[in-house]
C-alpha cells in the first residue's frame, strides 16, 4: 500500500496519479471550492444560494443527485467551520412526477446528519412549464424551416409531454432547455442572487463537447458565464441578473464517487437511487460499467462515455483541458437575438446557412421531371415562420408533430402565478 504524498499516512485511493489518505483527499476536494466561495465575497453576511437538483429517477437525475450531495456536504462544512460565515442553502428539486415523499425523507436525513438548519427545500413540478396552454405552441420543423401555431394537444402529464418526442437525443435537449429556463425563472421569482450548479468536471466537458457536436457551440460561453440574466416583461428593471457558479468544475467524476464513498454519503440517497448507485458503480474505480449501445445511446451519453474512458485511463488532463477551453469562449460580437425555443442568444439566419450548403432541388436535365416535382420540394407549412437557432433547428427536426413549446414573451406575471401554484413544498410547512 503506497503512502499518502501529503502526510505519509497509508493511502486509501489514487487520484490524478497521486496516492491520498482519506483526510487529505477530502481536504483536497474541499480546497478546490475555496476559490468559488471567496468569489462569493462572504464576510459576515449570509449568502442565499440556490442549488438545483434534477430529480426524475432517470440516469441523469442520479448523476445530478450524486453531485448535489457532494456539493451540499462541502457547502455545509464551509458554512459550519472554515469561514465563520455561512450560506443559506435552498435546494430546488425539479421533479417530473410525484416523487416528493422520497425527497422529504432525504431532507430530514440531511438535516439530522449535519445538524444544520440553514437549509430549505423547494420542489417544483415541471408540469408548470407547459401548464399555460395559451402560450403553448406547436412547433414544426421541416426543410430547415420552423413554424409555429397554437397547440391543439393537451398534455396530461409532463411524461406525456416529453414522450411525444421519440428521438432520445432531442428529448435530452428539450429537458435541458426546460431545466435551464425553469431554474432561471425560479431564481428570479424568489430573488436568488446566486445559483450553484453541481456539475462535475466530466459533466461540463460533456456539455461543452456535446454543444459543439449539436451545432450549439455558441451556447457554451452563455452556459458557463458567471453573470446570468433573464429578460422580464413586466418588471420595471426589465432584466434580472444573478451569479452562476459551478463549484465542482475541478472535480472529476471518479472523485465525486470516492468522496461519497469515503464519507458514507450514500446514506443520504433516497432508496431508489441507493439501489441505482449499487448497480451502476464499480467498487474499485467508481466508474460506470455499462457498455453503451451505440445505436440506442443519446449524443450526450456517447460523449459522456468518451470522457469517462479518458478519466479511467488516466487522461483526466484532457477532460480539464476541455473545461478550461470552454471557459475561454466568448459570445460572438454582432447582432444577436434570443432563440424562442432554447432562450440562448443566436446570430439568426440558420435556415439560410443550411440552404446554402444543402441543395434541395432535383436534377432537371435528362428525363423530364414529373409534374408533381415542383409542388413537392417545398411543401406548404401551416403556421407562422419562427426564426430559431441552428441547434434547435437541427435537434427539433426529429421532434415529431406533437412537439410543443410555450412561446411566451419574457417571463410574465401569469407564469409567476403558475410557478408558484406548482411549488409543491416549501420550507414553510416544516
Amino acid at each position, binding site marked *: 500500500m503506497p503512502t499518502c504524498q501529503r502526510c505519509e499516512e497509508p493511502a486509501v485511493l489514487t487520484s490524478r496519479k497521486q496516492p491520498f489518505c482519506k483526510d487529505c483527499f477530502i481536504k483536497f476536494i474541499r480546497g478546490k471550492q475555496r476559490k468559488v466561495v471567496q468569489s462569493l465575497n462572504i464576510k459576515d453576511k449570509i449568502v442565499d444560494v440556490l442549488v438545483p437538483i434534477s430529480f426524475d429517477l432517470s440516469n441523469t437525475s442520479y448523476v445530478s443527485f450524486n453531485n448535489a450531495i457532494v456539493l451540499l456536504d462541502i457547502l455545509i462544512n464551509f458554512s459550519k467551520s472554515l469561514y465563520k460565515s455561512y450560506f443559506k442553502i435552498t435546494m430546488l428539486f425539479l421533479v417530473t412526477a410525484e416523487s416528493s415523499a422520497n425527497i422529504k425523507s432525504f431532507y430530514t436525513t440531511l438535516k439530522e446528519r449535519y445538524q444544520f438548519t440553514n437549509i430549505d427545500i423547494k420542489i417544483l413540478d415541471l408540469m408548470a412549464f407547459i401548464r399555460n396552454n395559451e402560450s403553448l405552441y406547436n412547433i414544426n420543423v421541416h426543410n430547415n424551416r420552423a413554424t409555429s401555431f397554437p397547440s391543439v394537444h393537451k398534455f396530461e402529464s409532463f411524461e406525456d409531454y416529453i414522450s411525444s418526442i421519440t428521438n432520445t437525443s432531442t428529448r435530452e435537449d428539450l429537458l435541458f432547455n426546460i431545466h435551464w429556463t425553469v431554474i432561471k425563472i425560479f431564481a428570479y421569482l424568489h430573488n436568488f442572487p446566486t445559483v450553484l450548479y453541481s456539475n462535475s468536471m466530466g459533466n461540463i466537458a460533456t456539455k461543452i463537447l456535446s454543444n459543439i457536436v449539436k451545432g450549439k457551440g*455558441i451556447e457554451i460561453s452563455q452556459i458557463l458565464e458567471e453573470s446570468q440574466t433573464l429578460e422580464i416583461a413586466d418588471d420595471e428593471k426589465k432584466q434580472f441578473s444573478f451569479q452562476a457558479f459551478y463549484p465542482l468544475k475541478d472535480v472529476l467524476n471518479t472523485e465525486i464517487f470516492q468522496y461519497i464513498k469515503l464519507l458514507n454519503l450514500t446514506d443520504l440517497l433516497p432508496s431508489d437511487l441507493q439501489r441505482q448507485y449499487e448497480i451502476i458503480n464499480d467498487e474499485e474505480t467508481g466508474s460506470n460499467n455499462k457498455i453503451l449501445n451505440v445505436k440506442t445511446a443519446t449524443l450526450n451519453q456517447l460523449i459522456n462515455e468518451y470522457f469517462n474512458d479518458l478519466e479511467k485511463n488516466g487522461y483526466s488532463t484532457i477532460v480539464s483541458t476541455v473545461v478550461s477551453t470552454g471557459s475561454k469562449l466568448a459570445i460572438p460580437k454582432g447582432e444577436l437575438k434570443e432563440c424562442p425555443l432554447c432562450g440562448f442568444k443566436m446570430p439568426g439566419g440558420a435556415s439560410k*446557412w443550411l440552404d446554402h450548403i444543402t441543395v434541395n432541388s432535383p*436534377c432537371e436535365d435528362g428525363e423530364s421531371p414529373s409534374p*408533381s416535382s415542383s409542388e413537392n420540394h417545398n411543401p406548404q407549412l401551416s403556421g407562422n415562420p419562427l426564426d430559431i437557432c441552428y441547434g434547435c433547428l437541427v435537434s427539433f427536426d426529429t421532434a415529431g408533430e406533437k412537439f410543443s413549446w410555450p412561446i411566451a414573451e419574457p417571463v410574465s406575471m401569469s407564469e409567476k402565478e403558475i410557478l408558484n401554484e406548482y411549488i409543491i413544498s416549501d420550507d414553510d410547512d416544516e
Partner: protein
Amino acid sequence: MTNDEKTKTKKGNLKLCELCKSRKQAIKRPKNLQKICKECFYHVFETEIHQTIVSNNLFFPGEKVAIGASGGKDSTVLAYVLKLLNERYNYGLELVLLSIDEGIVGYRDDSLATVQRNKIQYNLPLEIVSYRDLYNWTMDEIVSCAGIRNSCTYCGVLRRQALDRGAAKLGINHVVTGHNADDMAETVLMNILRGDLARLENSTTICTKSSGSPIKRSKPFKYIYQKEIVLYAHYKKLDYFSTECTYAPEAFRGTARVLMKNLEKIRSSCITDIIYSGENLVLKEKKKRQQFKKKQNANGSKEPTEVEIRNDGSISLGKHGFKDGNRCTRCGYLSSNTICKACMLLEGLEKSKAKIMLENDGVTDGAAKLTRTLESLTF
C-alpha cells in the same frame, strides 16, 4: 413515412427519388438521409460545391489553380469536379494537377501511377515534386530515422511546403486541396480536446495562407461529407487509389475519429453541425486570457510552442508574428525564423542520423510531450 408512401404509390412498388419524384431511388444521402436517384445525387453534390465556391469567392477568372493531387479519392474527385464546374459555369480557371512524391515505397508508387492516369483522363497538366528533390530525404528515410510515431509531424510540415514550393515553381498562387467536411469537423474536435486556442477560432476557415507565403490554399469540399465523396467516385467510376497512408494517424486522433463516427450514426447531420459550431467559436479578449495563461504556466501546464501541425498538414507559425520578407538561411524559403520549419526538422534528422545508435527520443518540448502522451492513448 408519408413521403415514402407518396413515392411508392406512383409506380407500384418502385420507390421514387424524394427530390425529382420521377426516377428510381438509388442512394440514401449520408448528409441528410434523403433517398434520391443517381442524377439528383450528382446534381446536389456538384451544385453544393459550386455554391461553396461562389459564396466564398474562392476563385477569380483567369486564375491559375493547382489541385493538390495525391491519387486518393478526395483529390481525384476534386480534380474531376473542378474541371467539370470550371467548364459548366465558366470559372475561367487554368487548372493544374500538382503531386508530391514523398518517397513512400508501395504507397506513393501506386498512387502516383493513379495521378498519371488522371492526367490523361481529365486532360490536365501534371507536375510532380519529390521530397528527394526538395529536401534530399524520402519519407521512408525520415521514418527509419525519426520513428513511425513522428511521421505525421514530418509529413505535415514537409508536404505543405512541398505543395507551396511546387506551386511557386509553376508560378501558381493558389492551391486547392480535397479536405472535406469530416476533416473539418475532426479538426474542430481535436482543437477542443487539445485546448488549442491558437487555432480554435480558425478551425473551419475555408481559405488559409501562411503568413508571408504568397500561396493561398482553399478547400472547396469544406461542407462535403466524406461518404458522399466515396459514393460519387464509385458511381462516376473514377479512377483513384484507395489505400490509406501506410503511416497511420496518431492514436489519439483515432479515438476522436471513432467518437465522431458513432455520433454520426445517431445524428447524421452532426458533421455539418460541428462545422457550424466551429464557425461561431470566438475566444474571450486576450487580456483576460493572458492572465489565465500565466496561471497555467505556473502550474507547469502545456503551452504548444514547437511544431504545430494542422489536420490539413499546414503549420502555424506561432504568435511571435511574422517579419515579412525573411527567408530561411538554408533554403531561401519564406520563414519567420532564420531557419524554416522544414529545415529545422531536417537538421534534427541529420543529427539523429549521426546518433542513430542512441535511443531515439525525438522532440521533448511541451507540445511534443503532450502529443506523445495522447498518442499512446488507445482504448
